[in-house]
C-alpha cells in the first residue's frame, strides 16, 4: 500500500524540471526498492560466469590454455572480460550501482529511525477490540489487594517496561491508558547490517590497494629474505609502497610430509605437511624456530606467509661443451600425481658454445612398468631417478618475451637425447653423472631436496572486514528475529464496573504475537485480582 502511494507521488514529481530535476528523478529511481531488488538479482546472475570460465587472478595459466583450445570463442569471451569477471566493467557497474542504491536507501532510513526513536508510541485507539489480539478482564472489587486506577496504570507500565517495551502513560479526557511499543532494535539491526556491508566493501577496496601478494619457492636450506627481488611473482595493490616491505627472513631447514601408510583405501594420501623454518623478524634479530603448516600461517610483522604447495627439487650440476660449470643448484619440479611423478625442466642459457635444455620427469621411487616406461611407485624418495631428454641450440630467451620456466621452447633447438634417438634418453640416479653426446657437456644429479611454495600476503583490510562481517551477522539476526509490537492497556469504567482492556498489534511479520498475548495475560492475571475472563484471543484481523 505505502509503496503504491509513493509511486504515484514519484510520478507527480517526475522530470520536466531540467537537469537537476532529472538527476533527482534518476536518484529516486536508483534508490527505490524494486531497482535494488533487480540489481541484487542481476549481481547473482553476473557472478556465475566466473565459476564457468577460468579466471586470470586465480589461474592465469588456465586462461592461456583456454584461449589455446578455443581460438574463436576465446578472444570474444576475453573482449567481454569473461576471464576477469570480478574486476570487469559490467560486474563492477552492477555492484557499484547497488551500493549507491544502498547508501541512498540507508541515509533516509537512519534519519527516519532517529526520529522514531524520539517519538512516543502512538495514541491509544478508541476501540481496542478491533485489534488482532484483544482481551478484557473485569477487576474484582473489594478484595484487600484491589488496586486503584492509578496503581493499575502504574503496574501496567512496570510490567510492559520489564518486557522490553517503551511505555507512555496517557491520562486524558477519554480515560487512562498505557501505550507501549517494542522492537526499535529491529530497524537498528537492519541499518547496522546494511552499513556493515558497505564497510566490508570499502575495507576490501582499501586492503587491496595498500596490500600485496607474492609467491616464492624455497628449497630446503634456502632463505627467503622479504624484498621485491626475492619474489618469483609479486602483485602489489595500487597504493602499495615498496619501501614499506618489512625486512624479515624465513629459512627453510626441512620439510616433512607424512603419508597414510595404514589405510588400504587411502594409501599414500598426505596427512601432514610441516615446514621447519627459522624466522628473523628483522635483519638484526635472532632467528626463531617455528613450524609452518597448512592452516597455520606464519604471521610476521603484519604479513602472512602460507604454505601452499611443495615438491621435489633435484640438485643439478651442468657442465657445458667447454667443460665449465654453467648451472649448479636445485631445480623445482612440479608434482603431477599422488606419487609425486614430477615434471622437470631445466634451461641452461649460460652453456657454451650451445645453450642446453633438459626436460622430463623426476620419479621419487622409480620402477619400470611392463612397457619399459619408468613410473613412480611411492611419494617418498626411496629410489629417485631423473628421466630426461636433452636439447642444444637456442633457448629463445633473448627476444625479451617472458617465458614459462616450466615449458621448454624447442623450436630452435636440436634433440640430443630422447627415446627416439640412438643416444636414448637420460636416466640418472642420485649421485650419477651423464656425459652428453657429441661433447656437448654433462649433467650431474647431485642430490634431492624438497621445496615449499609460499604465498606471502599483506592485506590491511582483513581485520576491518572481519569486524564488519561480524557486525553484519549480528545486525542481520537482530533485524530478522526482533519482533516489532505495540501494546495498549486501557482502564474502562462501565456500569459501575472497572475492567482492563488490552490489545496487541504486530508491525510486520510476527508469528509469535499470540504467544506474547498469552504471556501478558498470565502476568496481568497475577498482578491484580481479576473477576471474570472475557477474551477474544486470536481473532484474525490480519
Amino acid at each position, binding site marked *: 500500500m505505502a509503496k503504491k502511494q509513493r509511486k504515484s507521488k514519484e510520478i507527480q514529481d517526475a522530470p520536466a524540471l531540467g537537469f537537476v530535476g532529472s538527476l533527482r528523478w534518476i536518484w529516486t529511481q536508483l534508490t527505490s526498492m524494486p531497482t535494488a531488488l533487480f540489481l541484487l538479482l542481476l549481481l547473482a546472475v553476473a557472478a556465475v560466469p566466473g565459476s564457468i570460465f577460468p579466471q586470470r587472478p586465480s589461474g592465469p595459466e588456465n586462461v592461456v590454455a583456454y584461449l589455446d583450445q578455443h581460438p574463436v570463442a576465446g578472444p570474444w569471451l576475453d573482449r567481454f572480460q569473461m576471464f576477469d569477471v570480478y574486476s570487469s566493467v559490467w560486474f563492477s557497474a552492477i555492484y557499484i550501482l547497488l551500493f549507491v542504491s544502498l547508501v541512498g536507501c540507508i541515509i533516509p532510513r537512519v534519519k527516519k529511525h532517529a526520529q522514531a526513536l524520539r517519538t512516543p508510541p502512538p495514541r491509544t485507539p478508541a476501540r481496542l477490540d478491533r485489534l488482532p489480539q484483544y482481551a478484557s478482564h473485569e477487576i474484582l472489587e473489594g478484595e484487600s489487594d484491589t488496586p486503584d486506577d492509578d496503581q493499575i496504570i502504574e503496574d501496567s507500565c512496570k510490567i510492559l517496561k520489564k518486557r522490553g517495551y517503551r511505555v507512555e502513560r496517557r491520562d486524558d479526557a477519554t480515560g487512562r491508558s498505557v501505550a507501549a511499543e517494542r522492537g526499535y532494535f529491529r530497524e537498528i539491526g537492519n541499518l547496522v547490517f546494511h552499513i556493515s556491508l558497505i564497510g566490508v566493501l570499502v575495507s576490501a577496496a582499501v586492503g587491496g590497494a595498500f596490500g600485496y601478494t607474492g609467491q616464492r619457492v624455497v628449497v630446503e636450506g634456502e632463505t627467503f629474505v622479504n624484498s621485491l627481488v626475492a619474489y618469483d611473482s609479486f602483485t602489489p595493490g595500487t597504493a602499495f609502497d615498496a619501501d614499506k616491505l618489512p625486512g624479515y627472513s624465513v629459512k627453510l631447514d626441512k620439510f616433512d610430509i607424512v603419508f597414510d601408510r595404514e589405510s588400504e583405501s587411502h594409501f599414500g594420501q598426505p596427512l601432514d605437511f610441516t615446514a621447519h623454518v627459522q624466522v628473523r623478524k628483522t635483519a638484526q634479530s635472532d632467528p626463531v624456530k617455528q613450524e609452518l603448516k597448512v592452516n597455520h600461517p606464519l604471521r610476521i610483522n603484519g604479513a602472512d606467509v602460507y604454505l601452499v604447495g611443495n615438491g621435489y627439487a633435484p640438485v643439478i650440476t651442468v657442465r657445458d661443451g667447454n667443460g665449465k660449470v654453467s648451472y649448479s643448484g636445485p631445480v623445482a619440479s612440479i608434482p603431477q600425481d599422488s606419487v609425486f611423478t614430477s615434471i622437470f625442466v631445466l634451461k641452461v642459457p649460460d652453456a657454451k658454445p650451445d645453450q642446453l635444455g633438459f626436460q622430463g620427469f623426476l620419479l621419487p621411487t622409480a620402477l619400470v612398468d611392463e612397457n619399459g616406461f619408468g613410473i613412480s611407485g611411492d611419494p617418498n624418495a626411496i629410489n629417485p631417478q631423473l628421466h630426461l631428454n636433452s636439447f642444444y641450440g637456442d633457448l629463445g630467451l633473448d627476444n625479451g618475451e617472458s617465458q614459462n620456466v616450466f615449458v621448454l621452447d624447442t623450436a630452435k633447438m636440436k634433440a640430443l637425447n630422447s627415446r627416439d634417438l640412438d643416444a636414448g634418453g637420460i636416466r640418472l640416479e642420485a649421485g650419477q653423472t651423464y656425459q652428453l653426446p657429441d661433447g656437448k657437456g654433462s649433467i650431474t644429479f647431485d642430490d634431492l631436496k624438497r621445496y615449499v611454495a609460499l604465498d606471502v600476503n599483506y592485506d590491511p583490510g582483513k581485520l576491518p572486514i572481519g569486524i564488519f562481517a561480524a557486525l553484519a551477522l549480528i545486525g542481520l539476526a537482530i533485524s*530478522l528475529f526482533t519482533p516489532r509490537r505495540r501494546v495498549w492497556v486501557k482502564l474502562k469504567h462501565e456500569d459501575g464496573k472497572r475492567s482492563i482492556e488490552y490489545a496487541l498489534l504486530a508491525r*510486520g511479520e510476527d508469528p509469535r504475537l499470540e504467544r506474547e498475548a498469552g504471556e501478558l495475560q498470565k502476568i496481568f492475571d497475577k498482578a491484580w485480582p481479576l473477576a471474570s475472563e472475557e477474551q477474544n484471543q486470536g481473532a484474525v484481523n490480519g
Partner: protein
Amino acid sequence: MGNAGALAPINESLGEYSQLFMLLAAMVYGVVFVIFALDLAKTNKSISEMDSAALKRDEEMLVGTGAAVAGGNRKRRGEAGRADNISEEIVTDKMTYTSFSAKRPMARVAVILMWMAAALHGFGVVSRALAAHRVPWGNMYEFLTTGAFLVALVYLIVLIIKDLRFMGSFISGLVTLMLCAATIGFPTPVGHLVPALQSPWIIIHVSIAVLASSLFAISFAMNVLQLLQHSRMNRLAEGLSDKLPFMRVVPGAGALENFAYRINTIAFVMWTFTVIAGAIWAEAAWGRYWGWDPKEVWSFVIWVVYAGYLHARATGGWTGPRSAWLSIIGFLCVVFNFTIVNIFFNGLHSYAGV
C-alpha cells in the same frame, strides 16, 4: 591440528558397519516414503467419504425443509477446502495437530518407522565418526550421509510440534535419494582428512552449512506445495474440478508461504555465518579470505538470491508465487553447489573425494 603421527588409526571394521547401517536406513526410509504416499491417497479417500457423509446429512436436512437445490453448492465449497469446517479439522493453517490428525494411522506408522530409520542412520553417522576419530563430513559420501541425517532429524523434530506430515513423502524421498547417491555414486571407505581440512573450522563451517541447507530443503518443499496449492485454489475459484485432491491435507498457500519464510530467515542467517566462517578458514588455509573459487562464487550466488527473496517479501511487496519462485531458485542453487560444483568444477574445494 597436532602431529600427524598422533592421528589415531582408522577403525576399518567399524567403518564397514557404518556403511551397512546407512544401507539399512536407506531401505527403511524408502518404505517410509511409500507409506507416506499411501497415507496421502488414503486420507484423500476418507476425506471424500466424510464429505459425502456430510453432504448426505445436509441433503436430508434440506429435503426436510424442501430446499434440495443447495446440495451441489455445498459440495463445491467442501472441495475448495478452506471454507468448510471439515477441512478445518483436517489441517489448520497453523499446522498444528487436530482431532482429524489421529485418523491417519498410515501417517503415524510412517512417522514411527522414520524415527527408526533415523536411529539406524544416526548410528551409521556416529560410527563413521568414531571409526575415523573426527567429524564425519570430509568428503562427498560423508556430506551426503550426514546432510541426509540432518534433514531427517530436523524434520522429525519439527514434526513433534507441527503437523508437517503432508511433506513426509518429500522428505523421506529426498533422504532416500541422498543416501542412495552417497552409497552408489560416492562410496568412500573411512579415511583421514587431508591437511587442509584438519582444522577446527571444519566442525563449525561445514555443520552450519549442512544445517542451513537442510532448512532450505524444507522451505523449498513448502514453496513448491505453496505454488501447487495456489494454482489449485485458482482453479477451484473458477469452478473447475479439483485435480489434486490430496492437497486437501496440505495447509493453505498463505500459511505455507509464511512458514517457509520463517525457516528461510533462520537458514539465511546460518548461511551468512557459513560464508563468513568459510572466509575466515580460507584465510588460514589458502592465504586469502575470498578468491572467487567456484564454490565461493556459488555460495555468494545463493546468498544473494536469498537476500533478494527476503527483500522481495519484506519490502518489495513480492509476496505469493513470485517470492516462492525466488526461494525455489535459491534451493536449486544450493543443490547445484552441492552436486555439480563439487563434482565438475575444479577449485580449491575439491575435497569431494571423487
